[in-house]
C-alpha cells in the first residue's frame, strides 16, 4: 500500500497571539473524499491553505503528493486543484476566457470545452463573471479546480451561501469526482454534507481534531442514540432530565435541552410526566436521528452551527 497522498502531522499555525491550528493530524488516502467538519473559525480553512501552499505553518509537518507545499510549491501546484473560499475573478472576464486562461498555466489538463459542458456552463460561455449567479460562479470555480486534471482537489466550503437546490448540484459534482477516484479534501460546516459526501470526516474545533472516522463510526461513537431537543417554559436541571427513564444523557445547549435516548417514545413519556409534576411546560420538541451534530455536541457541549 502506498503512503497516504495527504499527510498532516501536528500542524500548528498562529496569527499573532491566536493559535488558529493547534496540533492537527490526519492522513488522506488516494481516492478518498475526506471532510474537515467544524464551526467557522475552527481552523479548517487555515489547514487547507497550508496544504495548498498558500500559507506557511508554524509547526508540524505536511506533505501533499509526496511534496512539501512550502518548499516545493512550484511542483505541487501542478498536482492540485482548488476552489477557495474567499476568492473571485475579475468582473469583466468571460466564463470561457477564465477557463482558457487557467488551462494555459498547466502542462496537462482537460479541455475547457469539455469542462464547460460538464458543469452546465455552455450557455454562459460568453457571460462576464460579474453577471453569473452564485451557483454559476461556484460551478465555474469547481470547473477551474479541475482544469489541470489534478490528483488532489481542495474544496473549501464548496456550498457555503448557496441555496439548497444549487447545493445538491454541487453534491452531484463531488460524487461524480469520487467515482473518478479523485482525492478530495473538503471543509464544511454542514453536517448533511459531510455525512453524505465524505468517506471519512475529521471533526475540528478550536484548532484541534476532536474526532476522526467514517460518518458511521463517529455516529456509533455517540451511542447511536436519537436526539430529542426540547424548549421549556421554565429552566430545568440537567441532572433531573438525565435521570428520566429512557434518557441516556441530557445537557443544555444555548437555551435548548438536548436529550439522547435509545428508546425515544419512553423518554418522551417520562419527560412529559416529569414536566407536569414540576409545573413546567413544553414549548417545542424536535426529534432527530443520530448525526455528526450529536458527536459535536457530545465532545464540545456546543452546537456546530449557532
Amino acid at each position, binding site marked *: 500500500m502506498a503512503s497516504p497522498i495527504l499527510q498532516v502531522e501536528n500542524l500548528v499555525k498562529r496569527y499573532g497571539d491566536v493559535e488558529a491550528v493547534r496540533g492537527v493530524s490526519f492522513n488522506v488516502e488516494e481516492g478518498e473524499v475526506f471532510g474537515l467538519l467544524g464551526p467557522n473559525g475552527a481552523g479548517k480553512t487555515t489547514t487547507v491553505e497550508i496544504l495548498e501552499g498558500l500559507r506557511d505553518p508554524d509547526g508540524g509537518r505536511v506533505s501533499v503528493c509526496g511534496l512539501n507545499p512550502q518548499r516545493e510549491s512550484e511542483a505541487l*501546484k501542478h498536482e492540485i486543484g482548488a476552489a477557495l473560499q474567499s*476568492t*473571485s475573478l475579475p468582473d469583466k472576464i468571460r466564463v470561457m*476566457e477564465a477557463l482558457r486562461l487557467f488551462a494555459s498555466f498547466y502542462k496537462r489538463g482537460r479541455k475547457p470545452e469539455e469542462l464547460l459542458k460538464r458543469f452546465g456552463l455552455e450557455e454562459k460561455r460568453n457571460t462576464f463573471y460579474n453577471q453569473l449567479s452564485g451557483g454559476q460562479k461556484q460551478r465555474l470555480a469547481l470547473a477551474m479546480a479541475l482544469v489541470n486534471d489534478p490528483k488532489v482537489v481542495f474544496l473549501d466550503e464548496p456550498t457555503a451561501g448557496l441555496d439548497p437546490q444549487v447545493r445538491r448540484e454541487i453534491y452531484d459534482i463531488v460524487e461524480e469526482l469520487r467515482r473518478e477516484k479523485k482525492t478530495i479534501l473538503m471543509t464544511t460546516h454542514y453536517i448533511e454534507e459531510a455525512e453524505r459526501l465524505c468517506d471519512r470526516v475529521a471533526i475540528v474545533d478550536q484548532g484541534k481534531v476532536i474526532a476522526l472516522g467514517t460518518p458511521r463510526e463517529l455516529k456509533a461513537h455517540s451511542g447511536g442514540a436519537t436526539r430529542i431537543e426540547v424548549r421549556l417554559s421554565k429552566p430545568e436541571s440537567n441532572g433531573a432530565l438525565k435521570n428520566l427513564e429512557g434518557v441516556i444523557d441530557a445537557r443544555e445547549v444555548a437555551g435548548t435541552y438536548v436529550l439522547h435516548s435509545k428508546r425515544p417514545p419512553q423518554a418522551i413519556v417520562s419527560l412529559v410526566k416529569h414536566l407536569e409534576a414540576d409545573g413546567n411546560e413544553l414549548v417545542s420538541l424536535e426529534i432527530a436521528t443520530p448525526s455528526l451534530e450529536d458527536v459535536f455536541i457530545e465532545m464540545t457541549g456546543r452546537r456546530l452551527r449557532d
Partner: protein
Amino acid sequence: MSNFASLTRTRMQLALRNKMFFFFSVVFPLGMFFLYAGIFARGNPRAVSYFLGPAIAFNVMGSFWGLSATLVTFREQGILRRFHVTPVTATDMLASSLLANFVLTLPTISVELFLARVIFHVPSLGDLISLAALVTVGTISFGSLGLVVASVTNTMQETQVLNQIIWLPLIFLSGATFPLAYLPISIQHFGLFLPATYLVTGLQSALYQSFPVWKVSIQILALASWAVLTFFVAAQLFRWEPEAKIPRNAKLWALATALPFFLLGAWENSRGDILVQARAAFHSLEQPAKSDQTAPTEQPDKTSGRPAETSH
C-alpha cells in the same frame, strides 16, 4: 513564459473593457493633448511641437494610476489568491500587467503624434528612436511605481491618496504642466530630483529638438535603471493575500525607489546640462514668436542655433 503571455493577453482584454482604463488612457491624455496644443500652444506648429513632449509624458506617467488600482482591486477581491494556487508566479503577474499597459499606451500616443502632424502641422516629430526608447522605459518605470504603490497600501482609498500625493509634484514640478524653464529657479533645481523631469525633458528633447538617443542617454538610462529597481521592489513587496500585512521594511524599500533620482538630481544640479537644455528649448520657442512675420528666416535660424545652444 506561456503564463506570462496568456496573462498579458487577458490583462489587455480586461483593460479594454474597463471604463476607468478608457478614461485614464484615452480620454484624459487626449484632453491634455488638446489643452496643450490648442490652448497653451494656440495651434502654433512649433509651440505644439514644444508641448508635445509634456502631453505624451501624461500618457506615460498615467500608467501608475491604472496599474496600482487594478493590482489593489485584484488583491482586495481575492482574485490574486486564486492565481496563487496555480503555477503563476509574482513576476508573471507583475510583468504581464506592465507589458499589457505598455502595449495599450501606444495607440493613444500614436493618435497624438498623428494629430500633431496632420491637424496642427508640426514640422517634424523629431527623433523617433529617442521617442520610442523614452516611452518604453517611461511606461515600464512609472507602471512599476504603480505596482509599488499597490503593495504599500491596503485599500483602494489608501492607494488613491498615495497616488495623488505622488502625482501632484510629478506633474507640477517637472515641466509636465508648466515648462520647467518657466518655473522659479529653486523649483527647477528641485525638479531635477523627480523622475518625471527626466521623462518630460527627454521627450521634449526628442520631439522638439530632435535629439538623437545619445543626447538623451542620461534620461533613458536613468528611467531604465529606475524601472529595474522599482520592478524589483514591487516583486519584493508583492502580496497575494488581502489580509497579508505590509512588511515592516516596506517603507524603506519604497523610499529606495527614490534613491537613483536623489543621486542623479544632486549630480545634475552641480554639473549636468538638462536644465540648460530645457531653458534653451523654452527660449527658442520665444524667439521666433518675436519675428513671427519673417517666417522664412525662421528655419535657418533654428537649425544653426541649435548646436550652439546645446554645446554648453
